[in-house]
């Protein structure tokens, strides 16, 4: 099931079902434009809110309350979706029927709402300064730690270069410089702006007995911020650079990392599900599965690497392939990755490849209903690309897609950026 209801202007509650699950997931997503001015102010907010609330200002006591609810967990994040910033605050907890008569659902929902709407502020509506300093440190360390995962680091760097000149290039946790400039006053002011003007998507997956009361609780909570002009998500065509730009960064690493990015800006602005699905099928054959051309040829036949794959960002319309290789194999890997995409553009893949890709995608789509987290991710993505389609609707579309659709989509991708770490 999927029922999306408007609680107030720009505030939506989606009940995704989930009676079969033994736990419940509530995900509150705030969507705002991603800007250099606000990225850090927004990114630090969920960490401020995760630290406690007026009725429980100490983070350790807050953690104790969560653990006492059979390890209820509250989690926060800041992500980029196109040129929007998505700040998520979620709660997961075990359903009441498995916890010896305790009322976990009610208390966990109250904790989530309190942490969002009743943070630790003084009478002048200013965040506690020591708390702010602490969360500024947390955010700084998140940004610093991005270097630890070299693959993710290279993919991020490649995107930043490919999207430069647009807000899509702004890292969703901000930069060290931006974090240094934060102040408790600025973040406090931004908190109210954020509650009043962000577009809000609340997702609920779990026992239906609690769905209605959860919806009402959020309706009341957002009632203080109704009738505000809220941000409206819009699909866009981004004007990314079309000429090739190559950058190499030197670092003491055991293995070179390579990322190659292609863009098809038109994909980001289309609401045509068929084009997006055809692109996804094309990428499944190209580099998105263990039977892909990159896996079977660059890894298995050429024995060049352990990991070689590709993924798409459907909102901006980008395709990025990456590999971890020996430094002296960089050129061979680069040529192979480019040549495999050329093969896709020229239709050099079999009918069986397409049948297999459809089966893989069909299977992925069917299995979404078996995971609260995957259901949450799916419906958030669908809110962001404004389609609100279900996995079942996409499965029906699969059969309509032909080899020619894939070739057409592959041809739309232009090489713009190559990033190497060695």
């Amino acid at each position, binding site marked *: 099931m999927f029922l999306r209801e408007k609680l107030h202007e720009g505030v939506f509650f989606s009940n995704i079902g989930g009676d079969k699950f033994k*736990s419940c997931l509530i995900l509150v997503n705030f969507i705002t434009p991603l800007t250099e001015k606000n990225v850090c102010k927004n990114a630090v907010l969920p960490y401020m809110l995760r630290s406690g609330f007026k009725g429980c200002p100490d983070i*350790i006591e807050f953690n104790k309350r969560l653990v006492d609810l059979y390890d209820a967990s509250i989690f926060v994040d800041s992500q980029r979706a196109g040129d929007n910033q998505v700040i998520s605050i979620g709660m997961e907890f075990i359903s009441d029927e498995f916890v010896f008569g305790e009322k976990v659902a009610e208390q966990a929902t109250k904790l989530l709402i309190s942490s969002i709407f009743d943070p630790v502020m003084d009478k002048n509506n200013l965040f506690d300064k020591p708390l702010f300093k602490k969360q500024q440190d947390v955010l700084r360390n998140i940004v610093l730690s991005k270097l630890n995962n070299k693959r993710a680091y290279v993919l991020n760097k490649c995107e930043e270069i490919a999207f430069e000149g647009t807000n899509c290039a702004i890292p969703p946790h901000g930069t060290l410089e931006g974090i240094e400039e934060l102040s408790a006053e600025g973040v406090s002011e931004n908190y109210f702006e954020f509650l009043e003007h962000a577009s809000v998507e609340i997702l609920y997956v779990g026992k239906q007995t609690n769905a209605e009361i959860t919806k009402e609780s959020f309706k009341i909570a957002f009632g203080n911020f109704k009738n505000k002009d809220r941000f409206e998500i819009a699909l866009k065509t981004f004007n990314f650079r079309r000429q090739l730009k190559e950058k190499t960064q030197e670092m003491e690493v055991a*293995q070179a990392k390579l990322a190659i990015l292609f863009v098809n800006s038109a994909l980001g602005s289309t609401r045509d599900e068929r084009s997006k699905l055809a692109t996804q099928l094309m990428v499944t054959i190209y580099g998105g599965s263990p039977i892909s051309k990159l896996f079977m040829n660059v890894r298995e036949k050429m024995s060049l690497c*352990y*990991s070689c794959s590709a993924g798409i960002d459907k909102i901006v319309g980008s395709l990025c392939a990456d590999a971890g290789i020996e430094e002296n194999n960089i050129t061979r890997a680069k040529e192979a990755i480019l040549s495999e995409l050329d093969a896709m553009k020229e239709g050099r893949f079999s009918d069986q490849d397409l049948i297999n890709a459809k*089966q893989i*995608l069909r*299977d992925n789509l069917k299995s979404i209903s*078996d995971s609260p987290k995957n259901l949450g991710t799916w419906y958030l993505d669908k809110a962001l690309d404004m389609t609100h389609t279900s996995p079942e609707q996409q499965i029906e579309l699969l059969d309509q897609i032909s080899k020619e659709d894939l070739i057409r989509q592959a041809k739309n991708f232009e090489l713009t950026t190559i990033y190497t770490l060695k």
Partner: protein
Amino acid sequence: MTNAEIKKINVAHINEEYFEFTHRSGLKVVVCPMKGYATSCAFLGPSYGSINNCFAVPNGEFVTVPEGIAHFLEHKLFESENGQDVFELFAATGANANAFTSFEKTRYHFSGTQEFHRNLEILLNFVTSPYFSDENVKKEQGIITQEIKMYEDSPSWQVFFNALRAMYIKHPVRIDTAGEVESISKITKDLLYICYNSYYSSSNMTLAATGEVKLEEVLSVVDELYDGKEPLPKPLENFIPKEPLHVNEQIIRKSLPVSIPLVDIGFKEESLTESENFLNRLKYDILLNMLFGETSELFKKCYDDGIVTKPFELQTVAGNGFVSLIIESETKNPETLYQLVIDEVKKRQNGNLSQDDFQRFKKVALAEQIRLWEDPVDLASKLSDLARLDFNLNDILELVINLKFEDVEKLLDNGLKEERSVLSVIDCLL
């Protein structure tokens, strides 16, 4: 038909049930149908991992094989004699397949929403049909060399294995699961066949199927694919060197391109039998949370003083001949954190643990058992681990429910010795 006795396990607290039996071939099988799920999944594999590098072959002699060979073998089973790639077979049904090797086990698994019968056939078929050639061994050496280099660039992997190397002197748990570039270069097709024939016998294997599955269907595929296979006449003999209690070295450091040092603080604990270690893991997890978890005094102090900015990652690493406790964190003050951890342990020993904390983390342990049922993949993995050591989910639930404060207190008072602790640090190279 099998000659197995099928046992129904009723997990009353969670209102679920599943089945287990030992097939006449010796294969241990667990089947758990899950109502309302579209996904079916299966885990199959031997009790064979990176620590099994020395074992007896049929003539009774012990052979020593290159480090990383269990993981190498796992990669190689995905190729067949006719050149058909296993991933292609799974792709035809849409299933997602993969495998992994840990210290004591190798697991091959799939999950899919279509054609469970066919997927299970593919799984059992490829795991029971090895094909190794000089050519495909050489090719895999190139791929796994890159996998090893990927781990060399991973600070979390390096800090963890360095902690194990600092703690263990002889036990092969100190060896990287994938081996080293030099050790895997010594792997040959003949060595792979020796390992396969020793460890992949049906009585050393476990199969767990969960989700949209039927007992009869699993029975029929097992009957078909394990027909004629016999259990080993006697249990396989592994040689695991006896490990002294003291540590190899107290401090181990490495520099990598990281922005904040990464730290693992380890305690080497006394090892009992493999089964006892397995069950004690649960008690150690509770103890670690009581001492260093998100609600602990130590975490509060470190957080307030700016020594850490996020919760410690806590882990009990336990198996055949090894038990160690790991506390992981990013911090600019590794030595300070190490000393604080040691001081905290001493402060809590001899009667200074909190009953409230104990009750709190018992709830966490219980919640973990309930959450298992959320995901067919997690459940199959867990059931296969339990079956390997002849446990079931009720054994674990009962252990959690009946666990006493004194049990955990005893572990603390008799263990977590300063002289058996280590500090592993990844320093900033930049």
